[in-house]
């Protein structure tokens, strides 16, 4: 443990989780591959009529991004919980807030952000017009960060349960409603030729609130569960 490690918990934990992710490339690519595959299935189920795809595609891409992030958030604290390092993080007198925020940032960078970056390509495959692709990607970059932040809350709540993947999705999905609404309406506003600054501002304010509230509640959850 060097002095640098002590000096900034946020970066040290972020770097630690990033390192783990890079060592296990296949596991960290899974959400992205899932996203690409399931979006590519959509035309096969909807039919390849361009007009129909155009109308459905933004919503479909948003929902699929949500699903991919949800599936990957389960792993946020899982390993640390099983090998006991989570307990170490909680009982040492450091700032859990920064630790949690660092871990979530690493999760976003490795699991969620690739989905946002791949979304323009998938959007073009589903015949979204190139002009409106930009609003989809901006929305998804902020949106996936919100997904990761809330997914962290779900992962913290379900960390000690047995079959957590479904449970996590069920408890967190209702909380995703505002993000889905504002995020997907960004691109629909753009397509309908209206100003999309309104949903963008709403999404950004949700992101700011979540960046405070999510690490706070996650540390609260961990602290209270480890008291005994």
């Amino acid at each position, binding site marked *: 443990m060097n002095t640098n490690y*002590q*000096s*900034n*918990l946020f970066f040290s934990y972020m770097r630690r989780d990033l390192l783990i992710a890079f060592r296990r490339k296949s596991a960290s690519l899974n959400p992205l591959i899932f996203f690409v595959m399931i979006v590519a299935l959509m035309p096969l189920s909807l039919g390849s009529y361009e*007009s129909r795809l155009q*109308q459905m595609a933004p919503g479909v891409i948003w929902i699929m991004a949500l699903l991919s992030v949800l599936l990957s958030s389960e792993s946020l604290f899982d390993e640390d919980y099983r090998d006991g390092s989570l307990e170490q993080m909680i009982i040492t*007198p*450091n*700032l859990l*807030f*920064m630790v949690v925020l660092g871990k979530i940032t690493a999760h976003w960078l490795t699991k969620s952000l690739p989905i946002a970056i791949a979304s323009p390509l998938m959007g073009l495959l589903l015949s979204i017009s190139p002009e409106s692709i930009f609003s989809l990607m901006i929305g998804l970059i902020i949106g996936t960060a919100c997904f990761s932040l809330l997914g962290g809350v779900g992962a913290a709540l379900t960390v000690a349960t047995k079959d957590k993947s479904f449970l996590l999705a069920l408890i967190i999905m209702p909380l995703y409603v505002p993000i889905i609404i504002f995020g997907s309406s960004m691109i629909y506003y753009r*397509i*309908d*030729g*209206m100003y999309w*600054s*309104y949903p963008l*501002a*709403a999404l*950004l*304010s949700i992101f*700011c*609130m979540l*960046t*405070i509230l999510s690490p706070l509640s996650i540390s609260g959850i961990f602290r209270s569960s480890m008291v005994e």
Partner: protein
Amino acid sequence: MHPIRRQRLQIVALIFLLSACAAGLVIYVLGQNANFFFTPSQILAGEYRSGSTIRVGGMVVEGSVSRPNENLQTQFTLTDGKTSLDIVYEGILPDLFAENEAAIATGVMSVSNKLIASQVLAKHDENYTPPELTETMDFIRYSDYKVQ
């Protein structure tokens, strides 16, 4: 400064900054007028993308509801006070649909500048009154009655 204390300060600063951002954005969002549907004026000014499904809201013009054919097809006009738009709808209209009441039609614009509606919704009214009362108080406007 002690590293722990410095990081605590960082957290407080971060929280402060982010709450300020969130508050500012919320104020910006609330200050904007969000529109849920287009008004007839906006439609006739061409503020929509042709071919896409749109929602138009307005008051049903008195005397405009007609059934030109034998079937369920209904025609009526929605107005926002300035301009009006013809709506064509095939199906059963809801109970609360009435002339001089608000309605929202969802559909696609046709070439002849009419909205081919796939759904018509009546806007619900806040007031509940027994029928006898509305008959006796017919001369009083509905909005006046609400104040009593």
